[in-house]
């Protein structure tokens, strides 16, 4: 019995027991449904072992949407707890756990896979490649990320959630003050997912540098690919810092080392320092692909090319360098002198310049454009003003002297949600709506889509603008309750209503997917938006080899498909030849499972199991070393037959 006691939740409540029951029921139901419809073989053959970048992308997307739901439920719980003074819905401990997991899940397990979905789905198509540079490694990335995410989500029913904030500052995160295994989950689950992300970074830099279509120079790449290149570059330089910090933190907790402990020569402030050396670039890892997506969507629906391509690229390069020089602004109040704070204040404000350049370029793209207000465009139009508001409050926070006033208040919380939601989340949903027909062959309903945008923005403004005010009035962040005398009640109630409205908009998004799946016409061809980039030059649904003939963009611009459509530039030259493709493999999944076992065992200090997991991981690597895998060829006839099938399908459906 003693052995099993470690798996108990230290602070159980009715809500947690209910979630346990729900998790068990949903898992049983899932297994039952898959078994009933005999889908295990299909899932294994077509999805779990796939190295196709499009399918891996879709698996990232599904995980991201699930995590958006989970993080969203956390958010509504937090807002409900604060909607009334002295509310007893959550205890202090439970509240700590909920805001910690909300932060981690939303940043690392929602936003990260969402952008990785776009990297996977779009980059090879935009550069005219058949897959990424290392397709098998790409699948390993996915499974590591997925296992990390599942491990983290297990925490609240087995052993207890992390409760030291998503920043997990030491000394609070050390054994002395965080006694449950919760923070072990934090250290290890993020580590596993982080390794996956690092691998993704290397994979995509290589893909973009080495696999571009003939004639595509760096300055002819589509804007999203540029943003992906820069974001992956930041990943490769920033994530190792997180890896090291998490490893040191895990050792402090599991092996009693003293890197961040207060006594014995440890330095707790070093954790905050290392965390934000990674953490600030991470912000740009998320926002740059979002900018890239807006740069694809806005020209498409302004019906003109992007204003200032070179300025856009150079501002991203500048952001990538500057993003590594500002991390101190997250802890201006830690105790370093005014000189240090001034230096980092200035570097922080400098970032506003390239970001401002980008905003103006989008505005100039709209100027004299023939704007078509579709759902993705509506998201973009809401993004520009709302994001600018977040940027301006960011510059307010950047002033270190002023920051002493609103450090760790709701003002900060309002600021970063104000950049992340209209910036990252809107971009993801706009991109999702925009590329939905390319993925699934039907469009999302425009009326429901536009209504969703309006409901979401209404909810957003109601939820977060009040926080600016209560923050300036002194409501501290992470405070689980407050007295009526503070006068925060009304604004927090408004904020809760806003959060509830945002939850409704998420429901509308899900409803839209279902409704459109049922009702949308399927004869939409392969270019329903009258789009511009190379990714639209292939069929829908996209064949496994992407392009029957490798595109040649020597005579085209960065908007190769537009040049082909409107200016008659020929980009598919030559004949169909046999196509070399990578083999599917089950090894990455197996490796992911071993990583899960290793991680789970380490969290609970079960060393024998951990060693077994580690041997499994290493064994997979050794097996791979001796495995011969040279891929396979799709014969010329088969490619021709597939292409012919598409022609017949278009004719039969009467596509435009």
């Amino acid at each position, binding site marked *: 019995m003693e052995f099993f006691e470690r798996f108990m939740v230290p602070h159980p409540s009715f809500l947690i027991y209910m979630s346990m029951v729900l998790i068990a029921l949903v898992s049983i139901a899932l297994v039952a449904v898959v078994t009933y419809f005999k889908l295990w073989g299909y899932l294994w053959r077509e999805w779990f072992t796939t190295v196709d970048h499009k399918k891996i992308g879709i698996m990232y997307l599904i995980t991201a949407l699930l995590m958006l739901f989970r993080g969203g439920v956390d958010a509504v719980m937090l807002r409900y707890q604060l909607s009334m003074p002295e509310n007893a819905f959550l205890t202090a401990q439970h509240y700590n756990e909920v805001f910690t997991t909300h932060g981690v899940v939303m940043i690392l397990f929602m936003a990260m896979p969402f952008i990785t979905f776009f990297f996977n789905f779009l980059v090879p198509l935009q550069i005219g490649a058949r897959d990424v540079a290392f397709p098998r490694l790409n699948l390993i990335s996915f499974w590591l990320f997925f296992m990390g995410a599942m491990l983290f989500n297990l925490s609240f029913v087995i052993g207890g959630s992390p409760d030291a904030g998503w920043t997990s500052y030491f000394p609070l995160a050390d054994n002395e003050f965080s006694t449950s295994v919760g923070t072990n989950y934090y250290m290890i689950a993020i580590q596993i997912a982080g390794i996956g992300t690092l691998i993704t970074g290397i994979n995509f830099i290589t893909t973009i*540098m080495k696999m571009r279509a003939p004639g595509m120079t760096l300055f002819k790449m589509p804007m999203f690919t540029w943003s992906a290149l820069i974001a992956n570059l930041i990943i490769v330089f920033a994530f190792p*810092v997180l890896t090291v910090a998490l490893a040191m933190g895990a050792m402090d907790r599991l092996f009693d080392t003293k890197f961040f402990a207060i006594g014995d020569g440890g330095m707790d402030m070093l954790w905050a320092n290392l965390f934000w050396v990674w953490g600030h670039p991470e912000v740009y890892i998320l926002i740059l692909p979002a900018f890239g997506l807006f740069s694809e969507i806005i020209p498409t629906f302004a019906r003109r090319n992007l204003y200032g391509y070179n300025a856009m690229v150079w501002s991203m390069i500048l952001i990538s360098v500057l993003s*590594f020089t500002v991390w101190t602004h997250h802890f201006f109040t830690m105790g*370093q002198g005014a000189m240090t704070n001034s230096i980092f204040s200035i570097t922080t404000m400098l970032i506003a310049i390239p970001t401002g350049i980008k905003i103006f370029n989008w505005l100039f793209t709209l100027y004299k454009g023939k704007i078509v207000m579709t759902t993705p465009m509506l998201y973009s139009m809401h993004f520009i003003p709302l994001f600018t508001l977040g940027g301006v409050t960011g510059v307010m926070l950047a002033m270190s002297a002023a920051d002493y006033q609103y450090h760790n208040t709701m003002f900060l919380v309002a600021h970063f949600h104000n950049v992340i939601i209209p910036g990252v989340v809107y971009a993801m949903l706009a991109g999702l709506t925009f590329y939905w027909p390319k993925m699934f062959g039907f469009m999302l309903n425009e009326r429901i889509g536009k209504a969703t945008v309006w409901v979401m923005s209404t909810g957003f403004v109601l939820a977060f603008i009040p926080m600016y005010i209560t923050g300036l009035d002194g409501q501290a962040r992470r405070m689980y309750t407050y007295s009526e005398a503070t006068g925060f009640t009304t604004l927090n109630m408004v904020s809760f209503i806003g959060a509830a409205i945002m939850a409704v908009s998420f429901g509308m998004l899900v409803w839209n997917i279902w409704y459109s799946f049922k009702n949308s016409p399927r004869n939409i061809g392969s270019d329903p938006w009258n789009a511009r980039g190379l990714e639209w030059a292939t069929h829908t649904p996209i064949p496994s080899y992407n392009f029957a003939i490798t595109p040649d963009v020597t005579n085209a611009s960065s908007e190769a498909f537009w040049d082909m459509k409107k200016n008659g530039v020929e980009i598919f030259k030559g004949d169909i030849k046999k196509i070399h493709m990578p083999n599917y493999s089950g090894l990455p999944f197996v490796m992911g499972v071993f990583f899960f076992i290793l991680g789970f065992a380490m969290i609970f200090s079960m060393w024998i199991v951990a060693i077994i997991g580690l041997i499994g991981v290493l064994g997979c690597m050794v097996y791979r070393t001796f495995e011969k895998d040279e891929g396979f060829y799709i014969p010329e006839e088969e490619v021709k037959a597939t292409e012919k099938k598409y022609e017949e399908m278009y004719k039969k459906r009467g596509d435009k």
Partner: protein
Amino acid sequence: MAKFFPIGQVMGFVFSLVLTFVALLVYFTDMSMKTGMIVLLVTAFLQAGLQFMIFMHAGETKDKWSIYSNIAYGFGLVIITVLGTLLILLWDMDM
């Protein structure tokens, strides 16, 4: 004949041995902390550069521009991060 004899690699090997020997001097002779650290840092970076250029073939392919700029970028970031950390936690910390 020059093509058949890898003169660059042999010289590189000799030079890397020399650098190792110079670094060892720090241990075997009685240098001050300061001189010792300088010798170690200089030889370490020369050694890394040498290995990178000669034995990891950094400059031999068409993409050498991207390899070098990548290294320069990483180098710059490391210097910023280390100096920034020292500034925050040691040089400018009121403790």
